[in-house]
């Protein structure tokens, strides 16, 4: 069953075609990676999925329902969770309160906060102020804030960026573990992460879908290689 799909989704910024007529289907339960060179329109595309950016044209459907006109907070309420490319947490509040804010809105009670922090390995830092955490730990906290919502669709915008190698290994284990419960849309530059985690990969280039397929197919696709390496 298709959880999320777009038809003809476009975004034009004063003549710049950041995203152009993207048709995209994400089946439930899949881990999908979205890749592309810098400026390919990945973050703009995802921004339109979760309601941070209004599309110029096209529709977004989530769980069979047209959500194109819904504001961001309503989409989150339908079961999307979003983690920011640039870490965005409540730095002035304790780690526990950060995750609790996410849990409360999603109606997750009990020990959900402790469990989510345990899964990302931050259980022993629950009473620290979030701003005092290291960069890698702040990224993990942000992922915990996504997890605790028990979302149907988890959108991760470059989650592995800035993580140390050991942390990346933990992160991969976490996503594999999660794969059974939620659909994951992963925007990622780290090809090692993409190849290992993704069931399928969508490649964006100049705002349009260049290719879609299994990691292996994408790896061998000459058009994708050209886009990344340049044809000159």
């Amino acid at each position: 069953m298709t959880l999320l799909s777009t038809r003809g989704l476009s975004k034009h910024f004063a003549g710049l075609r950041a995203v152009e007529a993207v048709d995209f289907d994400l089946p439930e339960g899949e881990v999908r990676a979205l890749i592309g060179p810098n400026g390919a329109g990945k973050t703009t595309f995802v921004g339109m999925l979760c309601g941070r950016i209004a599309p110029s044209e096209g529709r977004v459907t989530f769980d069979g329902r047209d959500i194109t006109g819904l504001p961001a907070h309503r989409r989150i309420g339908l079961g999307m969770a979003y983690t920011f490319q640039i870490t965005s947490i409540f730095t002035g509040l304790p780690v526990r309160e950060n995750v609790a804010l996410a849990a409360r809105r999603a109606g997750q009670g009990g020990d959900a906060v402790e469990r989510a922090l345990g899964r990302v390995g931050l259980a022993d830092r629950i009473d620290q102020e979030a701003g005092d955490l290291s960069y890698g730990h702040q990224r993990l906290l942000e992922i915990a804030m996504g997890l605790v919502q028990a979302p149907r669709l988890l959108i991760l915008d470059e989650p592995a960026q800035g993580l140390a190698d050991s942390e990346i290994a933990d992160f991969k284990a976490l996503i594999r573990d999660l794969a059974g419960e939620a659909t994951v849309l992963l925007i990622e530059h780290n090809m090692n992460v993409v190849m290992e985690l993704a069931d399928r990969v969508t490649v964006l280039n100049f705002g349009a879908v260049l290719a879609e397929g299994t990691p292996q197919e994408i790896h061998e696709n000459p058009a994708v290689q050209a886009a990344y390496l340049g044809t000159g």
Partner: protein
Amino acid sequence: MTEARKVLILHGGLLLLLFVLQFVLPAYHHGNLARIMVLASFAMAYNIMFGYTGLLSLGHALFFAAGMYGMALTMKHLAFTPAPALLAGLAAGLVVSAVIGALALRTAGVAFMIVTLMFAQAGYLAVLYFGDWTRGDEGFVIQQAERVLWGLDLSDPTWRYFAAFTLFSACLLISLALVRRPFGRTLIAIRENEERARMLGYDVFAMKLGAVVISGTMAAAAGASYGLLFGYAGASFASVQYSIFPLLWVLLGGAGTVIGPFLGTLFMFYLIDLSSGITTAYMLIAGVVLVLLTLFAPQGLAGEVRRRVWRWLP
């Protein structure tokens, strides 16, 4: 000792102290403290928006005046008794803050400050324009005979103190309950990182509007009480000065602390009172002290206490 217990002891202790003080204070300070408690209620209202939600309004005089005139005009022209007149003041504050909030919250940051300032100035000018009813700058006195609430003469210092104390206690307890509940904690989250709060699924606009309405209605309660307790309503209470005062009190006392607005109001009131006893250039002394305080305690009195010793201070 748990945090909740410490919070209870501190704030309950303050209320108890204020209650007991009325029996021991000399008449002059007794009267001052009644005034301070009403003004501190205004400051607490301001703090809900500025300190907890991060919305810097420069137009709170409008809400204070809405309460004051909602009360005073209904008494003067419709012959309301104090209780319904107070309710009319509250209702005026509620309506005005809901309308202004819905409009002003379409902006943010500096634009929000300017929009709230403009609305407040429009309110001030409206008071002057409708001078036939409001008597404009000159204002009007609410006669002692009219200021009797449930048989209690509010012009009598004892009852006046008690009424001010009741208002103050209510505002303090509401503030305290608010910031410990999910709604208040979400307001803090919006202050800390609005976009993150939105992307956790919170309807940020609705919650900010809620904060404006609570703050505006509380400010109106202070304005209505002020007029009733001190027997006067005038346009000066709608002037920009009364938008700046609560900002100053909250900044001095500690934005985002429940007890800060009271400390700031008390401090500022007595700073001016004492320095004006020394010299006619008392604003110079007040100014220097304010500069020193912002230099050495930028988070205000209670904010500094929280930073250094009492991390749990709500």
